[in-house]
Structure formats: C-alpha cells, structure tokens
C-alpha cells in the first residue's frame, strides 16, 4: 500500500495544538518561582500574583547565600550525590552483569527476591534502616545519607535488563580474543551501555539531590550535615514563610540538575550495540 499524501490544513502537526498549551501550563510554576525569587517580600503576597516583576533584583539570592549556610548545604548535597551516583554505577554494573551473564546457583531466586523488595514501601523499611544506621554510628553524619544507598535495586534491575539485550556474541568474541570476564565487562559491555548508565546516573542524581525524608530522619541536630533540601525547609517556619528566599534558594538548588540533564542528554540517543553485527 502506498500512503496517500494527506492534504495538510496546518503547517505543523495537529498534536501541537494540544501539546503547546500543555507545555505552557507545565512551565507556569517554574516561571512563577523565577518571578518570586526576584520579588520583594511584600510583592510575593500581592494578589492577584504578579507574573512579571518589572525590575530584576537579585538581592534575594545574595541574602540566601549570605544569611544561611547555603554553601555548606550545597557542598554536603554534592558530596552525598556524587558518592551515591558513582557507587551505584560501579556496584549496579557489577551486580547486573552477574545477573545477566554469569550462571550461578540460585541466580533466578536471588534476582526475584531483589526485585520483590521494590514493592516494599519506603515507610516500612524506614525504621529498620534507621536502626541499622544508628548501630553503625552514622547518625548525624553524611555517611547516614550515603551508606544505605550505595547500590539500588532499581539500578540493578535496569542494567540487568539492558545487559541482556546486548548481543552475547560480542562477549564471546572478546573472550576468544583473550579478554577476562572483567575485561569483557569494562571494554565491551560498559562502553556499549553508556546510554543506560547515563540514564541511571541522572535518575539516581535526581533522587538523591531531591531526597528530603531520609535526611530529615537521620540528620538530627548536626546543622553542618544539612543537605539542600533540609536547608530549604528552614525557610519555611510554622508561622511564616519567606517565599522570596525559598524561591531563590530553590532555583539555585535546581541548577546542577538542569546542567546535568543538558550534558547527559546526548547519551540518551539510541545505543550502538548492534552495529557490529550483520548489515
């Protein structure tokens, strides 16, 4: 069947009529936050809300940095996030490769049990994990935020499924070529898995960077170990909230994630793993 050329009424896809307003709607909170971060405290309570500030004043940003421990929070969050992302990449890769390719007794059962833990809500394991961290004497330290998340079941699941899609002949060829298991993993599997690894890194980065509940539970009194999300919460009191500071701090805390996403975006393109095969 030859597709009949459709006469186009619009110079663009009709879906855009639906999607364009939707994206404006999605962007609105962001715009509001940016605007709020540039306003004075009085302006933030104006009704109806002002959607264009008139003048650009960055004093809120300066105040947040000067008056709070923003730098410390940012540094703490960076340390925790980088540690978790790196260790997740390393540990999940090793575990996933074993699940995907190494035959060992009980592989299926262990994998199934591991996946089953994904169905357990965080609230259920919160207290047991807290107790373990307490036993490890990590409470009130950044270690409390890092250690429980060094590897993630989600990461293992995602990478295992990805590794299984790689052509096994590539690994067999490498083994015949003289590569050890580890060498096959590092020189063949990992380079071909960059899209999956980049995805895992970004997801893990996002989760860790935005994590609020776990730091809230484990960082009790040590203000020096506050993360950004804990810090941001200090602007919100029970009686009044300094919205202009909240907005400015939020925007600064979002920047690394936006940058990461833009940088990693090019890795999200389709993988090249099958290009060495028959053509």
């Amino acid at each position, binding site marked *: 069947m030859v597709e009949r050329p459709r006469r186009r009424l619009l110079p663009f896809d009709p879906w855009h009529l639906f999607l364009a307003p939707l994206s404006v709607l999605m962007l609105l909170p962001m715009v509001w936050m940016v605007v709020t971060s540039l306003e004075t405290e009085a302006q933030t309570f104006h009704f109806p809300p002002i959607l264009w500030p008139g003048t650009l004043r960055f004093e809120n940003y300066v105040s947040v940095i000067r008056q709070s421990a923003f730098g410390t929070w940012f540094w703490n969050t960076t340390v925790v996030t980088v540690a978790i992302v790196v260790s997740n990449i390393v540990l999940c890769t090793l575990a996933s490769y074993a699940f995907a390719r190494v035959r060992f007794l009980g592989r299926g059962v262990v994998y199934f049990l591991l996946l089953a833990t994904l169905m357990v809500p965080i609230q259920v394991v919160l207290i047991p994990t807290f107790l373990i961290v307490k036993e490890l004497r990590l409470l009130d330290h950044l270690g409390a935020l890092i250690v429980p998340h060094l590897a993630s079941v989600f990461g293992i699941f995602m990478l295992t499924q990805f590794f299984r899609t790689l052509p096994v002949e590539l690994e*067999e060829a490498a083994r015949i*070529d003289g590569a*050890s298991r580890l060498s096959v993993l590092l020189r063949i599997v990992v380079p071909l898995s960059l899209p999956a690894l980049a995805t895992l890194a970004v997801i893990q980065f996002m989760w860790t960077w935005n994590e609020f509940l776990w730091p809230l539970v484990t960082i009790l009194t040590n203000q020096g170990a506050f993360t950004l999300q804990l810090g941001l919460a200090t602007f919100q009191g029970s009686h009044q909230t300094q919205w202009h500071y909240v907005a400015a701090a939020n925007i600064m805390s979002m920047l690394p994630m936006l940058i990461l996403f833009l940088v990693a975006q090019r890795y999200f393109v389709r993988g090249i793993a099958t290009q060495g095969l028959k053509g």
Partner: protein
Amino acid sequence: MAGVGFDGVTKVYPGPVVAVDDLTLEVADGEFLILVGPSGCGKSTALRMVAGLERISAGTIAIGDRIVNDVPPKDRDIAMVFQNYALYPHMTVEKNLAFGLRRRRTPRDEVRRRVSEIAGMLGLEDLLGRRPGQLSGGQRQRVAMGRALVREPAVFLLDEPLSNLDAKLRVEMRAELKRLQDRLGITTIYVTHDQVEAMTLGERIAVLADGVLQQVGSPQDVYDHPRNVFVAGFIGSPPMNLLRGKATGGRVVAGDLELEDTHVPDGDVLVGIRPEDLHPAGDDHPGPRLEVRVDVIEPLGDEVLVHGSVEADDADTRKGIDDGTLLAPTTSDRGTVRLRLPPRERPRPGSTLRVGVAPDEVHVFDEATGLAVRTR
C-alpha cells in the same frame, strides 16, 4: 599449527536435548574441514565446543596434543568468525583488529605491523579509521575474518560466515576464503548449512544430522558414494531423486524402472538417481528407463531444470530433512523427479518425457535402515 580431535564428544542440553551425539572426528593439521548439515543438526554446537563457548557433556576435544575440555577460550589458540560477525561496534576497524593482540600484551610495534599486514591482505587499509556501523556487509565480513586471522591462531573456526552476504558477494568471498586458507594453511573448521559451500570449499566434509555424524570424506566422494539416504538427499542441489521400490531375486523395480543387480538383498528399497544422470532416451536405450510427466521447467541459462513425476511411490524419506534445502515433494501419489537438461531442450509442461539412466549410476538404499546397499 595443530589438528583438532573429537573423541566421543557429546553435548546434552537440559531437557534433555542431545545436540551432539558421540562425535568422533579427526581434523588434520592444516586441513580445511566443512561441518555441514541442516539447521539444528548440532554443527554449530560442535564448533562452539572447540571454541570453548559450550561445555562438553562427554568425550574429549584435543587441539594438537592437548585435551582442551577445561581450557578457557582465550588459552586455546583459536580464532572464530561468527555468523553475525560480532564486531565491537564502539571501536574502529583498526581497534577491532588489534583487540586480541592487545589483550595478549603484544608489543605496540608488532600490533601495528600485523594489523597493517592483515589489512593489506584483506583490502581494509582505507577502512581502518571507520567503525563497524559505517561498513557494508561485505566489509564487515572481511573485518571479522581479519580480526580472527591477525592473531595467527592454530585453529580457525568459522560459523556460517557467508550466510549474511548477498549471492554475488558470497561467491566472491568463497573464492577469497579458499585462497586465504591455501596461503596461510591454518587448520580450519567451517560450519555451513549450504551444501554448495560445503562442496566447493572443503578438502573434506563431515555431514551431520540430529547430532550424529553421517559421513566424512572428500566432497566428491560424499557426492558420489553417499552412505545413507540422508546424505544422498542433503548433498547435491537439486537433491537426488528417491523412488520407493522393491528388490526381489536380484531385480530392483520402482514404477516402470527396472534394474538387474544380484548384490541387492530382497526387501523394500529406495532407488536414488542424481538429476544429472537422467537423460532423454529412446526405446533402444539399453539401461533402466522412466516415463516422466513434465510439470514445470526452470530454464537457468546454462541448463534447464525439469520438475516432473513418475509412476512410483514417492519416497517419504524427507521427513526431518531441512525443507530449505530440499524442494518439497508434490502432493500426488506419483513420485517426484527432477532432471537437468541442456539449455536448448525445453519439454512442454504436461508432455511425457522418456528418460534413461546408466545402470551404474543408480543408487539403492535399504528403506528400513536408510543405508546404501549400492552406490555408483
């Protein structure tokens, strides 16, 4: 350099499925051996066991004097070309070629020398900087061969390396492969389901079916003297005509074909005649004759292929034989017969053709065992 010895090699997959059954076979040093058989006959499994990619359930495989059952692939001094080439997609051609040498800690200068040598031999010089994704099928195929040859292995294993190429390229690569092997003299085991490749490439061919070795010999020997019905039907294209018949008191009868042979024991038999051994014949033809009703003719340029039927029960021996290799029998109760005629002879479909065969070109197989009781 080394030969390869299979001694009672068996591979059983969980199920249990016996993929290779008690395979005993010697591949001489420097020999080009073809493992041929229909898909699922265990030929690839046998090759993968030599490579060390499959564990051996029973028996031993030796490379040279060394039994390699428990030797990891990298220490077997073998190289393999995969059906889908399995080139490393993230590396350039040069790095693909050098990968094995690098893993073996070959000095850099030596790596460079050997890579450029093999690239020259295979005409890959201009492609060294490209990645597999930027190559054509034929180029990928050559890179895959280069990657295997560059290590100068003792044994070269090829798993249907030409099956992904188009027909023209396949003929070219077939010749190139043969030249390479002649020149390098590396012991080679070549797996294929294509009996043309088997006939043209190998010094010897080993025919496998259902994991069992059927016959080993030079291509011509296997073609001329098939040991059993399977080999007779599998080697040769179009396949040997097989007609059901009866042997009594030194006379073999299948439809209107009659043959005197006192060596054939009494019983049900299958009479086999190669398509090229049937020739149009007059009433004065001294040997066995057949009346063929012409169904379809296929002019191929250099010859005409005639598909017809004869008055005889078609041999129902094609079960289990690769459908892709054998043409499907017609549905009537008449026996199907194919014959080759010179290019100008084109009988009309529906007409009757009287053909004859020289008595010593008739094969006879015992129907119960499938074994040959008479070959030419």
